[in-house]
């Protein structure tokens, strides 16, 4: 048990706990803010798996972009929405949620089952990559490598994503504009 492991457990605990809170919370704003915590903790987990660039992107895009966007969205949508939503009095243990819980529980069991059956640490390609020293260690310059790869190997997806992103932005802007007399 080294420090990385301890950190991992702490981080994953935070992730799961905050996510559960989000799920359980009746308070929309609180759940949104709790979602920040989840995302931050996730970023921590990325770091722990030696993906610092992804972690940074996560924080920038999600926390800086998406969550702000969400907050904006319901701030824009007006106060009464919040009132309605916040007064919604629903318990997670409500009978209506039971099918969902059941299904989700079953799904979870299946997932765990699959995960355990997979025995991910001993997959062929992973053992190969360890053998070939293809795995990332905390010594290497990974961010540079990403940059190179983006511009060479993943250039086409990169371009497509940027176009898509632009289209999405334009579309979002178009959708959210105030409708005139049309």
């Amino acid at each position, binding site marked *: 048990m080294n420090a990385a492991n301890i950190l991992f457990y702490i981080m994953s605990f935070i992730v799961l706990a905050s996510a559960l809170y989000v*799920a359980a919370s009746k308070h929309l704003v609180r759940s949104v803010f709790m979602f920040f915590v989840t995302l931050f903790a996730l970023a921590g987990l990325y770091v722990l798996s030696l993906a610092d660039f992804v972690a940074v992107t996560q924080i920038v895009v999600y926390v800086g972009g998406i969550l702000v966007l969400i907050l904006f969205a319901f701030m824009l949508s007006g106060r009464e929405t919040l009132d309605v939503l916040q007064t919604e009095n629903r318990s997670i243990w409500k009978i209506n949620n039971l099918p969902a819980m059941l299904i989700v529980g079953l799904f979870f069991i299946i997932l765990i089952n699959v995960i355990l059956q997979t025995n991910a640490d001993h997959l062929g390609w992973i053992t190969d990559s360890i053998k070939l020293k293809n795995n990332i260690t905390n010594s290497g310059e990974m961010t540079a490598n990403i940059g190179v790869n983006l511009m060479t190997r993943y250039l086409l997806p990169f371009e497509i994503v940027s176009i898509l992103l632009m289209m999405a932005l334009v579309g979002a802007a178009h959708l959210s504009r105030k409708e005139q007399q049309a």
Partner: protein
Amino acid sequence: MISLTNYLVVSGILFCIGLYVVLVKRNAIQILIGIEMMLNAAILNLVAFGKYDKVNNGGQMFALFAIILAAATTAVALAIILNVYRRYKTIDPDKVDQLKD
């Protein structure tokens, strides 16, 4: 070394929580949050496996793309939610069950 299985379990739990949120919540924004959670669970997997691809960096690359696409979808989704809200005065997806008005 943190075992891959640990990552997978955490991401599985997270995915399920997200799924639950998506299924249960009666609020489009919360559902969106749930979707994001599921996406993040997936990204966590990508990142965790990406550790074993030093040369191509496939896992991390896809994690990046996913994050960006999530941002795009969120933007579009929010725009849609706003529109729905304007039209139906609610963002409960159960009550928005008409394709035409």
